[in-house]
């Protein structure tokens, strides 16, 4: 009876409630396509977020730093995503300039790289790493027209800021600062063997003609030495080595007193040039200097005690004249155009290499790191460095496919369950 009452009420409804079936189909199709599009977009966005999250994960940030570098890398990698250096990364193996992004990075014994934070974008403001890889000093940008030096202990995380020292290229009237000292950005700096002093080239900002070695102590002291010449390193913890254009090597103490001098036996017809490349060995017994004979460059090594010439090696395959030379034991190292650090006295044996030579500017490897064992790269578990593995794209592609497939499977399963439930 009840059903009959309802039938009686509704008998005329279909005549007056008429659907547009064609419009319903078109609208439904549009919605289905839109839902697929949105779903695909969400899955891709999810895959992107997961991918970036995994790749930017940096295990170094949670690792307790060791006391010294554990060797040097067979290959210096560049991660897919470069992140800033953590506050206490531990000792680094070297610093490296990337022309591709116009910035400087540090790398550890396994070749993993991090950006040096706040460093000037000018490519000749290079950071300076101590021989034990523990101390890093560089000119840090504070604002558009102000920089200051920072000395960073990479093991303890302690930073000594030297506000009195600024950028030597900001000496025009538009960039006047109250900083009494400036550094010459083109000249590299060198740490004392005991990590107490960083020596670079600079001086009073209002007397550029007097510029010479400028020392910055980890206690914040600044000391300008009234000595002319090119800074090439430290003979001992209290002996700075300076080479002059006339072939003279002088030893200066931190007070600026010249305590020793020797004449280097520069081969006849050569002019030495040590402004950017000269380097004393880690034990202070030898010095390597770039000399020129016409258009031909040579790398000559001398005994620092006697000035005697040890050997001369012709060099035309790299940045010898513009980047710091290196030492591994008694052998001189230089970066070549192929992005490899080679030992020049042994037929250019490759010591380490950079994964992307086209991007390489200057690079410096710490002496203690070079004294240690060679280390392999980050390995497959460190996703950030997959661009040094030729098949990383295949792995990434497989991960994306799995993610998409997993999402599709999940959605279908959920729908099936809902269908069963109703």
């Amino acid at each position, binding site marked *: *009876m*009840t*059903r009959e*009452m*309802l039938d*009686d*009420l*509704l008998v*005329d*409804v*279909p*005549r*007056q*409630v*008429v*659907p*547009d*079936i*064609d*419009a*319903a*189909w078109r*609208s*439904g*199709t549009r*919605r*289905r396509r839109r*839902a697929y599009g949105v779903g695909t977009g969400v899955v891709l966005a999810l895959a992107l977020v997961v991918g970036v999250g995994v790749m930017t994960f940096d295990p170094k940030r949670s690792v307790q730093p060791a006391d010294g570098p554990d060797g040097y890398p067979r290959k210096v990698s560049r991660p897919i995503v470069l992140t800033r250096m953590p506050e206490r990364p531990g000792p680094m193996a070297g610093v490296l300039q990337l022309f591709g992004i116009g910035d400087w990075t540090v790398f550890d014994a396994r070749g993993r790289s991090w950006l040096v934070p706040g460093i000037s974008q000018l490519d000749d403001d290079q950071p300076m790493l101590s021989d034990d890889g523990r101390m890093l000093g560089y000119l840090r940008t504070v604002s558009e027209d102000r920089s200051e030096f920072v000395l960073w202990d990479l093991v303890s995380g302690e930073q000594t800021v030297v506000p009195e020292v600024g950028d030597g290229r900001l000496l025009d009237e538009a960039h006047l600062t109250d900083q009494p000292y400036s550094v010459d950005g083109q000249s590299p700096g060198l740490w004392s063997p005991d990590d107490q002093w960083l020596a670079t080239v600079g001086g009073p900002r209002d007397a550029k003609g007097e510029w010479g070695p400028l020392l910055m102590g980890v206690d914040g002291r600044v000391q300008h030495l009234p000595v002319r010449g090119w800074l090439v390193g430290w003979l001992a913890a209290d002996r700075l080595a300076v080479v002059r254009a006339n072939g003279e090597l002088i030893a200066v103490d931190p007070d600026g007193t010249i305590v020793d001098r020797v004449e280097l036996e520069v081969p006849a017809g050569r002019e030495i040039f040590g402004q950017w490349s000269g380097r004393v060995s880690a034990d202070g017994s030898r010095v390597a200097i770039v000399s020129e004979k016409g258009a031909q460059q040579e790398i000559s090594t001398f005994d620092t005690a006697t000035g005697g010439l040890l050997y001369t090696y012709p060099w035309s395959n790299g940045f010898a004249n513009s980047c710091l030379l290196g030492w591994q034991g008694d052998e001189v190292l230089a970066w070549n155009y192929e992005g490899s650090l080679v030992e020049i006295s042994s037929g250019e044996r490759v010591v380490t290499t950079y994964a992307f030579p086209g991007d390489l500017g200057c690079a410096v490897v710490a002496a203690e790191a070079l004294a240690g064992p060679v280390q392999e790269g980050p390995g497959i578990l460190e996703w950030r460095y997959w661009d040094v593995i030729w098949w990383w794209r295949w792995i990434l592609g497989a991960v994306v496919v799995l993610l998409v497939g997993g999402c599709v499977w999940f959605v279908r399963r959920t*729908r099936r369950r809902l*269908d069963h*439930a*109703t």
Partner: protein
Amino acid sequence: MDPPGAALLCVDRGVEDFEQWAHARSAALARSAYLLTGDLHLAEDLLQETLTRVAQHWRRVRRQGAPDAYARRVMHHLAIDSWRRRRSRPAEVLGADTPEISHVDADADRRVVLRDALARLTPRQRAVLSLRFYEDLTEAETAAVLGCSVSTVKSTAREALARLRAVAPDHLAAFATGEGS
């Protein structure tokens, strides 16, 4: 067995299948829509939206072989959802448009009373009455369609019948006893 090239025409065949099904079922769905809304315009909107939802998922619905059940579920959920959305929308005046009664007879008064009484029910109560007394589903099947428990169906049906009985005890005595179930 599908004729050669049927795979290439699968989309067109889907349209045809849908249209065939919709033409066959639209009358019954229209009645349910009116029963759920109590208004011709709202019933038309509800029916159109139901068909659109079915078309959106037509391939899956057809593969499962239960388009009627899916349409019924969608329609009743949409009707109840309109109640949930009522706070953010202007109030709908139910009962403004009613079906023209083509055959005036002695039962005309009873139809008017029944229509007005149904208009006083909530969408959920109307949905329960529609499924139980018009679609002839069991309490368990009704609960499955609405996504609620059997006890909720029972209590909702009891409240709906009580309200109908209160509005017109003489005309709707059959509802009061649940005779139609």
